[in-house]
């Protein structure tokens, strides 16, 4: 049977040592008759590797992918290039079939990678300390808010804006529902900037949560908002894009207290949304409230430098209900990928990637704006993402048309706006100004030929309305 080892003879010998007649006897001894399942599980029949590979290959081929289509989708997950060396390393069994480094002596590989990852994240963010990863960017944002709330007893207000990733806000709403906290979502201004949130900060505010560049691709006045928060005694949490830091100022250099990011962009495949990598860094002083595992440096009994899991008194397996979070597993394998990716890029590679994104995005904005049907929404430069309004008011049809032409041309924002199907409550909606708009991401992978084709297909799409 597939991966099982025991032959009938093995089983007989083992039962003899146990002193049981059968495996059933052992099980029936413990599992009361009344709760035993009296029938086989109703699952599809066992399938061998050849047949299953063939079937799954057909199934996979039925999905549009960033390989079969040209991908201009973003919204928190991006089609960046992943060097082959990243896959080669992450596919080593010693990494992907090992577990949490409970025995440091036989886990120095993973522990050193964690330590290197943490260091890279601090270099990237300009903040003092990083954990070894969280589940994803979205849940990391909420963990950061919970961290801020737990530091700021007596303050229970969390301020964010309607241009922070809607799904990230959705998580926040779910997590905060049963605890003593108030979420305030401040409307952005007509350019999609969050500066108006400054006025909402008060002495009950535990933290402000911003995204920069934000969900609609706009740059925020991070330093200004962080300064206002600081003055009011609140912490500033920034959601950042790792690739943007090839060019943009680092969170730590703008007064941010806790920086979080979706680390997918750093060498991790799109994978229909997961597994992803939650990056979190904070100022040194906040370390004892930082959720998740942390690797630290120490020496062994012979004085050799080595690495261990440390500060475990924050964690659930020691502190149980008094832990800073319930997080147990982390995303080591994805953190490894990010570590390898950043090692290959280095400072100049990261900068070059950002520069290519900027130039290609600028080019895409330029070519799409040539059509009378489309309007780029929001002023100012873009890192790799921007919003386009369909003056033909048929975004759904437009994108469907593009899909047929092999293009994943953008993300329809209409369902995310107030009253849209994905905006389950006002706190998670986008401003209504983004109705009949779509969000476009242009990474360094997109060639001029692809961008031109994208613009052509969109411009020549049939429209329901008349422009």
């Amino acid at each position, binding site marked *: 049977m597939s991966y*099982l*080892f025991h032959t009938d003879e093995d089983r007989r*010998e083992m039962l003899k040592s*146990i002193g*049981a007649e059968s*495996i059933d006897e*052992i099980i029936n001894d413990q599992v009361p008759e009344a709760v035993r399942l009296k029938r086989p599980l109703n699952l599809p*029949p066992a399938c061998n590797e050849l047949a*299953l590979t063939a079937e799954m290959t057909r199934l*996979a081929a*039925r999905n549009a*992918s*960033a*390989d079969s289509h040209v*991908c201009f989708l973003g919204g928190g997950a991006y089609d960046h290039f992943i*060097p082959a060396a990243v896959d080669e390393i992450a596919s080593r*069994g*010693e990494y*992907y079939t090992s*577990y949490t480094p409970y025995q440091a*002596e*036989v886990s*120095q*590989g993973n522990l*050193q990678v964690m*330590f290197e990852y943490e260091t890279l994240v601090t270099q990237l963010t300009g903040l*003092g*300390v990083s954990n070894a*990863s969280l589940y*994803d960017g979205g849940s990391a944002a909420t963990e950061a808010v919970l961290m801020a709330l737990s530091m700021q007893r007596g303050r229970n207000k969390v301020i964010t804006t309607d241009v922070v990733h809607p*799904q990230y806000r959705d*998580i926040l709403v779910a*997590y905060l529902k049963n605890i003593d906290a108030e979420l305030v979502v401040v409307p952005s201004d007509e350019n999609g900037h969050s500066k108006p949130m400054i006025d909402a900060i008060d002495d009950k505010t535990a933290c402000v949560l911003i995204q920069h560049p934000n969900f609609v691709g706009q740059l925020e006045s991070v330093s200004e908002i962080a300064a206002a928060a600081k003055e009011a005694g609140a912490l500033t949490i920034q959601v950042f894009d790792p690739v943007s830091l090839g060019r*943009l*100022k680092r969170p730590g250099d703008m007064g941010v207290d806790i920086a979080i990011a*979706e680390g997918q962009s750093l060498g991790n*495949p*799109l*994978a*229909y949304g*997961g597994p992803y990598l939650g990056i979190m860094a904070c100022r040194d002083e906040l370390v004892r409230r930082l959720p998740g595992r942390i690797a630290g440096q120490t*020496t*062994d*009994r012979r004085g050799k430098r080595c690495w*261990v899991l440390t500060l475990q008194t924050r964690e*659930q397996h*020691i502190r*149980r209900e008094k*832990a800073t979070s*319930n997080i147990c*597993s982390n995303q080591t394998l994805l953190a490894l990928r990010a*570590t390898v990716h950043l*090692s*290959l890029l280095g*400072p*100049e590679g990261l900068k070059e990637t950002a520069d290519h994104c*900027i130039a290609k995005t600028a*080019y895409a904005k330029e070519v799409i704006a040539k059509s009378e049907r489309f309007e780029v929404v929001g002023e100012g430069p873009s890192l790799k993402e921007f919003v386009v309004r369909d003056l033909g008011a048929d975004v759904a049809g437009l994108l469907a048309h593009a899909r047929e032409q092999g293009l*994943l041309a953008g993300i*329809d924002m209409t369902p995310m706006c107030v009253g849209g199907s994905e905006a389950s409550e006002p706190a998670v909606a986008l401003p209504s100004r983004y109705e009949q708009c779509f969000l476009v991401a242009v990474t360094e992978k997109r060639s001029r030929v692809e961008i031109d084709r994208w613009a052509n297909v969109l411009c020549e799409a049939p429209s329901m309305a008349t422009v």
Partner: protein
Amino acid sequence: QSTQLLFELSRAGRRAHRLGDLDVPSVNVDDLFTAESLAETPPPLPELAEGDVVRHFVCLSTLNMSVDTHFYPLGSCTMKYNPKRNERIASLPGFLNVHPLQHESGLQGLLELLYELQGMFAEISGLPGVSMQPAAGAHGELAALLVAAAYFREQGSDRSVVLTADSAHGTNPASAQMAGFKTKTVKSNANGLVDLEDLKAKLDDKTAVFMLTNPNTLGLFDSQIEEINQLVHDAGALIYLDGANMNAILGITRPGDFGADLMHYNPHKTFSGPHGGGGPGAGPICVRDFLAKYLPGPIVTRVENENATSDDDRYTYHLTSPSGDSIGRVRSFFGNTGVLVRAYIYLRTYGGDGLRHVSEDAVLGANYLLSKVKHFLDVPHGNRCMHEFVASASRLKKEKHLSAMDIAKRILDYGFHAPTVYFPLVVDEAVMVEPTETESKQTLDAFVEALFRITEEGEELIHDAPHSTRISRPDDVTAARRPVLKWTDAAGESAT
């Protein structure tokens, strides 16, 4: 093999990755962006050549023990063989390079898989409502407790207490706390099972949920399960099953059949998703029908096509976004799809009958080890177990100053990963052994032999163990007292 850090290998001006010339007009970034936005220099990342990067990480990998290289009987973690076909199939571009915000029209293959998987999870658990969004077991616990809270809220109930067993995983109380509940601990009795008297004493009209691990962390199936079921539900509370130990009972008994109202799976344990050095995992949850509407989403639904012309378009699959009564989301996008795809492949590989054999052989292996180990190590909770058991080094510690930690360290020298030690807390000097079904009798025999030899070895040899690893007995205390959590130039110089 060097164990220098990346940062120490760095040399200014080296470069591995390079993009070519732009094929679009270049822009002057300094003009385009405001000075306020721009950094003066990119982050001070290390500068390396590709050959260095590869050799560095390949060599580091060899410092890990892993399932692919060693027997890894880490109790409670179900370190079973990770099938290579899972990795290959999950890496097909149609699964791996799919964007999470794509339109569902281009995702029918994947959504069909996920829909089928939801059904399999429901069938194995006996609980019909399934959400695959949570990213890990503990995340599933939290999500399920938020579901319970939403349920009670709608009931107008003020139940605010979660009971957890003293033998439970630490995540149970931590998750309850995060979900806004107060927690109380229920004791274990002398047999390692739930102390029913203590349970009765703590159950009241404030009790929302009793979190149960069954088989529990001692590897014992609680034979009082019917009574527990009765007591908790009579008190108006719900039972949550911590599914960490599902590998013991696949096709043998179902949580939904023995009283659980909510549960999570650990597909990276039970369904062979690799552990990834600590993650990623996944934490799909299953609930009874009356709780299904509170589940976090999206979940997959399907509609039959009347005009279908082939098997491929018999159904259209949809994502149902959280709305209405749903608690909303617990993470971005769908979930840890990659881990779920592997679980699906695993389940298809075994089928229903095969899956029962998995648990049977897992139970057989654990009982076989127990039958051998009990001759030289105390096993406080009986002669039989399910898929794992907990021995105690407490007597050895008294007699020979040989602690559970010492055993764990010394067994590394024999080429085995250590069992889990000092957990569960209810056993003194606990040594928790879970062999899984994917180890040979030869390997189990060699492991027993090694364990036995350790109990006979000299104290000093063991206290200094391990001897064969690159490092031995790192100083955890200093690590925590004077934390060095990142490399800096200075740290690099001081310690090598």
